[in-house]
């Protein structure tokens, strides 16, 4: 996934000391989950900065599709796994976005969408 292909860069509301990005959860979570599933199932190489998240990705790869299920429609027993999947996707996406700007300071604004609430 070309991370920058999906971003909508907006002017920050006030002067910022960092690059500002705004994303909708519907842009982040499904695509990132699919990417992680592909990485794990196809044993794809990841850059060193993502190795931190690879162990968790392997542990919950079978549950990453839960990011597409709203919490109130999720089996009660699966809610903790759904939360882990959402958090992993957020961290993975954040790290990829950060890497795409050369690890410069950044402000990521994830807008609200009840379907992706933890």
């Amino acid at each position, binding site marked *: 996934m070309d991370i920058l292909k999906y971003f909508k860069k907006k002017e920050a509301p006030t002067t910022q*000391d960092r690059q500002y990005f705004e994303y909708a959860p519907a842009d982040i979570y499904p695509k990132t989950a699919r990417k992680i599933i592909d990485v794990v199932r196809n044993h794809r190489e990841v850059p060193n900065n993502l190795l931190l998240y690879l162990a968790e990705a392997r542990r919950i790869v079978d549950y990453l599709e839960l990011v597409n299920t709203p919490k109130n429609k999720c089996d009660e027993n699966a809610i903790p796994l759904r939360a882990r999947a959402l958090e992993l996707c957020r961290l993975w996406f954040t790290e990829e976005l950060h890497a795409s700007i050369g690890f410069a300071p950044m402000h990521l*604004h994830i807008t*609200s969408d009840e379907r992706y609430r933890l």
Partner: protein
Amino acid sequence: MLAGWFRAGTTPTAFYLFLATSATAPTADINTKSELTEIADTNGYTAGGISVARNSTDFDVLTEDDGNDRALVQLKDEVWTASGGNIPASGNGARYAILTDDNATAGSRDVLHYWDLTSDRVVSDTQTLTLQNCEIRINES
């Protein structure tokens, strides 16, 4: 935080990130650095830890998560390189990374946040310990 925002107190000019052993596990009830056991210094680790500036260089990723009513603050990667021997030079390895304020008296520094490194970490001579993307979660509700 209370002093800085609600009592017009002095906010720290910087923070410190130090490494602690498992002798005392940090909890919400821990107030100051003196209540924890810092790893032995030398060989690339300085007592008190690494200074962390209050700026976009050292806190390089801020996330505003509207859907979950929270903010997330990540520290830049912090690295210790063992030189002339292991880190720690003696005693137990590093189990926790602890963020404190910058009180001039190290033992009186307020403990602000901690991260569990999940096991006692010993860095062999010439090797590095990197803490990547340590994150602080601030909930709005």
